[in-house]
């Protein structure tokens, strides 16, 4: 068992991860004629940098990268601050009304967003195809997740901590922003990681709300691939996938320990 386990572990990594990722790298390095039928052979000449610069231009990667950031940062910051504010009151006040509001507020954990009628609503609000509309949609989608995580955590913070500040005459906003919010660090970082992942990689809701109007990395991958599959440009699709995954992989590489412990801490009681 001592000797079998490491062999099994390495074999699993090579077969389950090595093969798909090898395919991506070698295909992204091929010329169009070689990549027509993507296979596991190495390219006769490496064209990796040429392909990178082609997709970087044709896939509008710079605007797409900033488009993704422009939507993700306000959405995540907004949903966390507003969600945490609500969670504080939901965790501390006890009444039937509050219990009902809480149940309603976390229903979005389970229920799917009404993606078609969201578009109609955004048109009525004059937000169709705008970054603001997309930010609002993401905030609405992930508010329940934040409220669920943070309310549970606030309940574990002793009330005495707030009382002490209140005796000193601190107003509720001051108590919240000075005492409670700084204590929420661990849960907030878990929620941040999860929601960032979902928003950064989302293409489904983006296709409905901002498709064709604003560039984001997944939306442009969808365009590059839809055109590329027709022309069998597998080398360009995979070059785009590598470039698009780099920011995420670098972030993940730097923060992997915190990300992994953050993700698991919320799930198992």
């Amino acid at each position, binding site marked *: 068992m001592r000797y079998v386990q490491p062999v*099994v*572990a390495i074999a*699993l990594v090579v077969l389950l991860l090595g093969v*798909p990722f090898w*395919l*991506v790298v070698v295909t992204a390095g091929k010329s169009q004629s070689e990549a027509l039928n*993507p*296979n*596991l052979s190495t390219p006769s000449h490496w064209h990796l940098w040429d392909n990178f610069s082609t997709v970087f231009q044709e896939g509008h990667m710079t605007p797409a990268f900033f488009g993704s950031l422009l939507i993700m940062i306000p959405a995540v910051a907004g*949903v966390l601050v*507003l969600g945490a*504010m*609500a969670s504080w*009151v939901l965790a*501390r006040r006890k*009444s039937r009304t*509050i*219990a009902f*509001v809480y149940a*309603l*507020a976390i229903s*979005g954990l*389970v*229920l*799917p*967003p*009404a993606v*078609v*009628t969201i*578009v*109609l*609503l955004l048109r009525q*609000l004059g937000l169709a195809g705008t970054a603001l509309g997309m930010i*609002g949609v993401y905030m*609405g*989608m992930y*508010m*329940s997740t934040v*409220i669920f995580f943070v309310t549970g955590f606030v309940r574990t913070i002793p009330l005495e901590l707030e009382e002490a500040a209140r005796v000193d005459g601190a107003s*509720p906003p001051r108590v919240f922003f000075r005492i409670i919010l700084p204590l929420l660090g661990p849960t907030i970082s878990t929620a941040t990681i999860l929601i960032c*992942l979902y928003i950064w*990689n989302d*293409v*489904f809701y983006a296709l*409905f709300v901002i498709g064709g109007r604003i560039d984001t990395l*997944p939306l442009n*991958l969808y365009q590059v*691939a839809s055109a590329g599959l027709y022309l069998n440009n597998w080398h360009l*699709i995979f070059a785009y*996938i590598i470039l*698009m*995954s780099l920011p995420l992989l670098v972030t993940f590489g730097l923060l*992997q320990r915190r*990300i*992994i412990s953050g*993700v*698991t*801490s919320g*799930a*198992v009681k």
Partner: protein
Amino acid sequence: MTTTQLTRAEAAPPRTVARAGRTVRHRQDHPAWFLVPALAVLLVFFFVPTIYNFVYAFTNWSSFHAAISFVGIDNFKDLFTNGSLLKDLRITLVYAVLVAIFQNLFGLVLALVLERDTMINRFARVAFFVPVVMSALAVGYIFQALLKPQGGLNEILGFFLRHDVEVAWLGSTTWTIVVVALIHAWKWMGLSMLIYLAGLKTISEDVLEASRLDGAGWWTTFREIRFPLLAPAITFNVATALLGSMNGFDIVQATTGGGPGGTTELLNIFIFRTFGQGLFAQATTMSLALFAMVAILAFPVIRILRKREAVL
């Protein structure tokens, strides 16, 4: 979560004057206006569109009509008679169940293999989390290329079997749904693995020691002690896998686009396609069907899993 909430709520009504005074002060300490911005966002961007679902599914809203008017249950009738309503509901359900099974099976096996804290295992855990971080759309395209008749998987199989293999993995009207579910499970198995690893770690060393002293082997210890104690992790993993795959889109869109012959057409793929054709009311009707399916299935499933936890 909800049950503790309710018992606390029942205990809330103040019985004495002193308690009443405390409650009033409590209210001022935690003002209701803190709830307003979050609830406003939820109302506008979540609840109103959901309510719209129940309205516009009964209209002829489309890019072909200038005005929207009510048509009763015509959309449901159309989708029912052309078979797509029941077919897509069935496909989505099959997909969700398959993903839940595969994702949990792979996650649990990985967790058990990589349980010990060695250097190789730590590296492997991080590696298996990479697909979780990646875009699902990108994962779909990777597997579309890998699973082509002349693709990488057949190359490998051909090498080991010593003859040419040309299976069209994404071309079967029966089995492709299983293949796309496997891809979905591949993308998310790293997350399930981490949850199971965390669950395994919470099991006290004393319990395992006791079972070892009683002469239980690895398999008996796993079946009788560790697996039952993993109940909370199983609840979380099964629930998230079911919910995630019922809302699935990216992976299937990128691998099969709903084909072959519509046999992998999840509800969200139908919604996206009909929306693109300008048939907004039909897309809304399907969106309502998805809402109903999730609402009907999710709550009982979560309750059953929770109850199993409570028994243990």
